[in-house]
């Protein structure tokens, strides 16, 4: 018996791969659904901060991600746009990552159309420019010099949504949906800290722990971490809304749970095998 368990401890990693694949495919194919409890915390803080903005405020959303992190960040983009637009807050958006432009557009135009919001009046997408932090610092003194036109080449000066927005200081909040560098940290360093603008955001679950310190120093007002953060936000936006649109994040959470269980099961098996081997070797001495 001991040898069987010990063999388990040296399992070929391909067995683990197969089980992981099944753990994700089966719940998705069967469309399992588990309820999400909303926690107090960084997700709620971001929601509340946006809820407290007066109508007509201007918020900058920076789409700092690409398709590889879409599963986590795109639902956030959608949920945030829904929240901002229903509260009649104007959205100025841009991307520090090249692929963020079209992803951002997808979210903004879909939500905008469903809520009857117009491009150039209620929202605009300025597009992408390389430069990360450098770019932000330039925008601190003059946005129009960095983005004379939006992503489609339309002059920004004439857009109603940009009236009164000349530099970063004219914005009420910056939200960065960030998959790495440049991303939230860049915005905190180059905009939040320098020009004293509230910075909030969403990130992949992986970078969330790294951003926690900024939450406690107040450099970040709130944070959506990974699919769970997106799920939280989706759930909060849906409260009090009749016939809410389907949530993208909620669907994946079931598969998430099962896969977590599988990994934890592996860790337990690994440890039982390890301990039993140690015990046997210890006994043989």
């Amino acid at each position, binding site marked *: 018996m001991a040898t069987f368990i010990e063999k388990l401890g040296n399992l070929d*990693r391909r067995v683990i791969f197969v089980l992981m694949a099944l753990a994700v495919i089966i719940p998705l194919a069967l469309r399992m659904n588990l309820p999400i409890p909303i926690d107090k915390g960084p997700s709620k803080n971001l929601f509340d901060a946006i809820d407290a903005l007066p109508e007509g405020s201007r918020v900058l959303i920076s789409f700092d991600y690409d398709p590889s992190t879409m599963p986590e960040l795109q639902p956030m983009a959608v949920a945030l746009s829904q929240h901002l637009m229903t509260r009649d807050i104007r959205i100025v958006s841009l991307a520090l990552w090249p*692929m963020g432009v079209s992803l951002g557009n997808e979210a903004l135009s879909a939500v905008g159309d469903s809520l009857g919001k117009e491009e150039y009046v209620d929202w605009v997408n300025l597009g992408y420019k390389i430069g990360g932090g450098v770019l932000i610092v330039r925008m601190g003194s003059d946005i129009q010099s960095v983005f004379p036109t939006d992503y489609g080449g339309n002059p920004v000066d004439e857009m109603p949504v940009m009236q009164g927005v000349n530099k970063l200081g004219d914005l009420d909040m910056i939200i960065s949906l960030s998959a790495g560098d440049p991303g939230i940290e860049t915005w905190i360093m180059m905009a939040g800290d320098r020009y004293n603008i509230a910075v909030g955001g969403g990130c992949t679950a992986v970078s969330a722990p790294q951003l926690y310190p900024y939450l406690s120093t107040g450099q970040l007002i709130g944070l959506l971490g990974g699919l769970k953060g997106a799920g939280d936000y989706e759930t909060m936006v849906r409260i009090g809304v009749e016939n809410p649109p389907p949530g993208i994040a909620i669907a994946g959470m079931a598969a998430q749970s099962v896969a*977590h269980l*599988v990994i934890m099961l*592996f*860790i337990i098996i690994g*440890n039982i095998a390890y301990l039993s081997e140690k015990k046997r070797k210890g006994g043989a001495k």
Partner: protein
Amino acid sequence: MRLVIPLMITFVAGMIMILQFFVPATQPMGDNLQEWYMIVSSAAIFLGAANLITVHVHKIRFKARNWKYSPITLIGFAVMIITGLVFGIEADLPFDYLFQQMVAPMAATMFSLLAFFVASAAFRAFRASNWRASLLLVSAFVVMLGRVPIGSMIWNKIPIISEWIMQYPNMAGQRAVMIGAAMGMIATSLRMIFGIERSYLGGAD
């Protein structure tokens, strides 16, 4: 001697960037410098492109191992360059289509391989071989449970404990790493700006 001018450029550029942070009057100068920097570092990509072509042409010519795959790289490279230059990069044109339908899914797939690797790494590395390893194991385990709804179904305190670990021990650790690494980075940067570290320029004289 051949390093004098490069070292001076490094010094001046570094000092301008430091000054523009503390002296508002020098901000326009810093802005310009940063734009130059952006241009020069983007232009460097042609070096890489030239290397990529050389390496693969070389492989094909000398029939190096796996040379049969090199034409694929070259064709892929050429197709992107040509579609980009001919049609432009706006949405719904060939360049964008190729990116969206081929490059992006491949990037997403490579990224998602991590789910498998995280599982195999956790299985192999998280063993209670000593008490410190056990702590690592326990904190990973609790946080993992706290992140999914199932955790709170097992015991409703688990998300709270997981959040506590993130807020206190984890934050302390992250902060120590950040402060320490910042000192390392500042010292390295200073050594470069003041010409004490110059090996990046190649040549020790």
